[in-house]
């Protein structure tokens, strides 16, 4: 007994109903399928008998036989011919000079045994043609398989109503072309296959008509009263990619769907119950809940600890680029908006990188290791893009400049300790390190030994507190982390995750590229004109900052928002209006970019990009959402320690 009839009888014996010669004539449900209507087909398949029957279900699958993948053949200008036995277009004549062979299912031989014979012969012939003389061995043999049976034409499933009435007969599922659209094309005189395609967009989606073209062509043939080959085909194009066997049976799912990049301290975060935040492919510790704590509780505790004692954070994912060469300082002057020539070795500086359009693209702290040697840091998510961007400029635009770049993101693990007790803690684990503000001031770095490990320590801050970013070989990162946790116990050292880090930086009004910026944000929009050099002859994006639109005084500016109710935390992305109306439409003048509860301010804080925002200081703006209206006052985007007094501990 062929396997398919065995499957059918086996299904029937288990009480699964199989209705041959029936059609789904209606699908019901709003937003999701809830039931289908099924009717018996008449013997010619052109109409249905009237006894409808409803079956409740939540999914409808349909299958309509096989069509060969002729896209590559067709794109290389090969001619297709209609095969009435399998109701499909198959490859016919190849244009001379095109090295392209269609074998197996790609030329309409769908049975496994035929595919194996065809593929083996074609492979052997190709290998011989390429000069290999080995025997190709025996043709592989397939086991028994069911015959495909005779094909029955049914290009449109009939229903009780004419085409286009009550429900849609979709033909092209990607471009939403229906059978009624094809009929309309015919009525409008778009009967040539090229017109049909362009009038309806049928077959123009990324599947290039894989599931739809033949049905549409056959329907047009019916309407015109001609045969399918007389209607002909358009060119199937190669954007179509067959579904690979691996997509059905491969292992790229679950954990393997996409690599998870882990820092050398990852397992500690795991053991301490941290949920992870996905940043690019990295997993970063999000917060460290203690038993019984909610996320809100945990983040508040972490944020407070950094301001009152000391917090510790795994910042290993930061992008890092080693820059060497006699033109290195020149290069930085070009890729950053500010000036780098006078930065002394041993010192660090914050930099903003713009695209050619003058919009903020990335930021980070770069340090001068030696006269011609710098260490750049980038955002975690932007690291690969920045590296490619810098290489692009060096290789394509400035090949005469002597600069070499090496990604060292993973050469260094980074542990940040931040807070008023940070320097005391560091002094204990790095007793030989001079830590006074004179020998180790803010925005400088030094080499030293931390917990016995050769390290490089940067004194830079993303929290506004005195902060040391300890860089060490990843193989010792777990040891250094544990040593810091142990030595810091008496200070109540608190590991903090990315959420607390975001709150801390927002309290200080430090931006996150990609959160306060969206590719349409200039340094001036952010109130960061201070970092744009007026002396430098050129830098990437400089010219675009001179455009009338980028110089406009009423662009969207970064401002702070303080809600009237201090406990109301605005949703990020909330739209802002100034002329409040009963219902939309209202003119939206901006949106909330960052919003948190700040335990250090004892209230919610938010940043927003608001049209003409800097000229609205003190104004009240409205955020209507979810059936209510929240009022907030416009402020400077700095909420805590605006003078920056805490940087020195």
């Amino acid at each position, binding site marked *: 007994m062929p396997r398919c009839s065995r499957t059918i009888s086996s299904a029937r014996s288990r009480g699964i109903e199989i209705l041959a010669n029936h059609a789904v004539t209606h699908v019901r449900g709003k937003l999701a399928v809830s039931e289908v209507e099924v009717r018996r087909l008449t013997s010619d398949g052109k109409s249905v008998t009237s006894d409808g029957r409803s079956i409740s279900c939540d999914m409808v699958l349909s299958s309509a036989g096989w069509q060969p993948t002729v896209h590559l053949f067709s794109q290389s200008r090969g001619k297709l011919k209609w095969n009435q036995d399998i109701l499909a277009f198959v490859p016919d004549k190849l244009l001379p000079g095109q090295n392209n062979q269609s074998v197996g299912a790609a030329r309409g031989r769908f049975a496994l045994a035929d595919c194996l014979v065809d593929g083996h012969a074609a492979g052997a012939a190709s290998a011989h043609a390429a000069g290999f003389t080995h025997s190709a061995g025996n043709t592989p043999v397939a086991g028994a398989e069911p015959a495909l049976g005779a094909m029955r034409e049914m290009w449109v499933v009939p229903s009780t109503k004419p085409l286009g009435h009550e429900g849609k007969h979709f033909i092209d599922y990607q471009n939403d072309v229906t059978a009624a659209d094809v009929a309309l094309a015919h009525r409008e005189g778009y009967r040539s296959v090229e017109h049909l395609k362009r009038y309806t967009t049928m077959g123009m989606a990324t599947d290039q008509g894989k599931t739809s073209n033949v049905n549409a062509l056959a329907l047009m043939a019916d309407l015109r009263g001609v045969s399918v080959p007389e209607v002909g085909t358009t060119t199937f194009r190669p954007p179509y990619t067959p579904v690979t066997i691996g997509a059905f049976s491969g292992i790229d799912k679950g954990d*393997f769907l996409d690599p998870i990049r882990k820092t050398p301290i990852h397992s500690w975060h795991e053991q301490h119950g941290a949920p992870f935040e996905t940043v690019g492919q990295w997993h970063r510790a999000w917060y460290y809940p203690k038993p019984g704590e909610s996320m809100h509780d945990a983040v508040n505790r972490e944020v407070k600890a950094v301001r009152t004692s000391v917090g510790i954070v795994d910042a290993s994912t930061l992008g890092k680029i080693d820059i060497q060469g006699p033109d290195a300082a020149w290069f930085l002057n070009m890729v950053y908006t500010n000036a780098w020539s006078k930065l002394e070795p041993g010192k660090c500086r914050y930099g903003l990188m713009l695209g050619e359009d003058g919009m903020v693209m990335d930021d980070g702290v770069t340090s001068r290791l030696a006269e011609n040697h710098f260490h750049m840091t980038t955002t975690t998510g932007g690291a690969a893009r920045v590296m490619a961007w810098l290489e692009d400029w060096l290789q394509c635009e400035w090949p005469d400049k002597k600069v070499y770049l*090496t990604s060292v993101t993973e050469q260094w693990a980074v542990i940040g300790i931040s807070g008023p007790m940070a320097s005391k803690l560091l002094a204990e684990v790095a007793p030989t390190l001079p830590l006074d503000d004179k020998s180790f001031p803010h925005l400088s770095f030094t080499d030293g030994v931390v917990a016995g490990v050769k390290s490089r320590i940067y004194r830079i801050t993303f929290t506004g507190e005195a902060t040391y970013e300890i860089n060490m070989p990843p193989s*010792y990162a777990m040891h250094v982390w544990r040593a810091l946790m142990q030595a810091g116990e008496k200070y109540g050292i608190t590991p903090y995750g990315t959420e607390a880090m975001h709150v801390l930086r927002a309290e200080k009004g430090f931006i996150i590229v990609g959160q306060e910026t969206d590719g349409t944000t200039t340094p001036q929009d952010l109130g960061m004109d201070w970092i744009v050099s007026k002396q430098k002859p050129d830098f990437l994006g400089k010219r675009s900052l001179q455009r009338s639109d980028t110089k406009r005084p009423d662009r969207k500016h970064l401002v702070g928002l303080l809600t009237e109710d201090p406990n109301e935390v605005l949703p990020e992305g909330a739209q802002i209006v100034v002329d409040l109306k009963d219902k939309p439409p209202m003119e939206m003048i901006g949106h909330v970019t960052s919003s948190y509860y700040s335990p250090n301010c004892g209230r919610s804080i938010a940043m927003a990009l608001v049209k003409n925002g800097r000229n609205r200081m003190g104004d009240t703006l409205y955020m209507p959402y979810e059936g209510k209206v929240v009022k907030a006052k416009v402020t400077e985007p700095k909420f805590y320690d605006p003078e920056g007094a805490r940087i020195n501990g």
Partner: protein
Amino acid sequence: MVETYQRRSPLAHLSLVARAAASKKDGAGIVMSEVPHRTIVNIRGTASDPAFSSAVQNATGVALPSAANTVSTGGARQILWLGPNEWWLTAPDGEADALVEALRGAFAGQHATACDVSESRAIIALKGPKAREVLMRGVSLDLHPREFRVGQCAQTGVSRANALIHLVDDTPTYELYVLKSFSDYLWRWLEQVAADFNLAVDA
């Protein structure tokens, strides 16, 4: 200084030593192991400049490989070709600082650089008659020994991670250099594939 036992290899969390002890190597189609802590120094310079190539040779005792995608050897050190102006010098653990210093000294007056990247990579070794078949499942390069010979190396994708593959000998033994952050993914991916070929773990 810190005790060396405090040092962790990138795959330490997988307890490979314990697994190796319990693993039967006889008749294994493939043996997987981690090569921990190798010195890797990234070298950039102008290949056609004789001053550069002799500086490399003098500082390291290894000649730059002359052909693309090949590896040259000098004692326990090797130089792997990465690109027209980029190479990796590999050496036993602990030589990075001295080699970087020697190279930078030898490069005085030239535009050529050395940068320690030892700590950025994990190294996974695949050894055994089925090693190539395992790799083929995730690599689109032609790894047939006719095309990819002993002493060749290539940077390519292995499943969804980027790696440098070096064919060390004709057992065959492949060494895969991968960014440490991807090493957990790549090891587990290879292990899953290798399960079809009688896998053993070594350490």
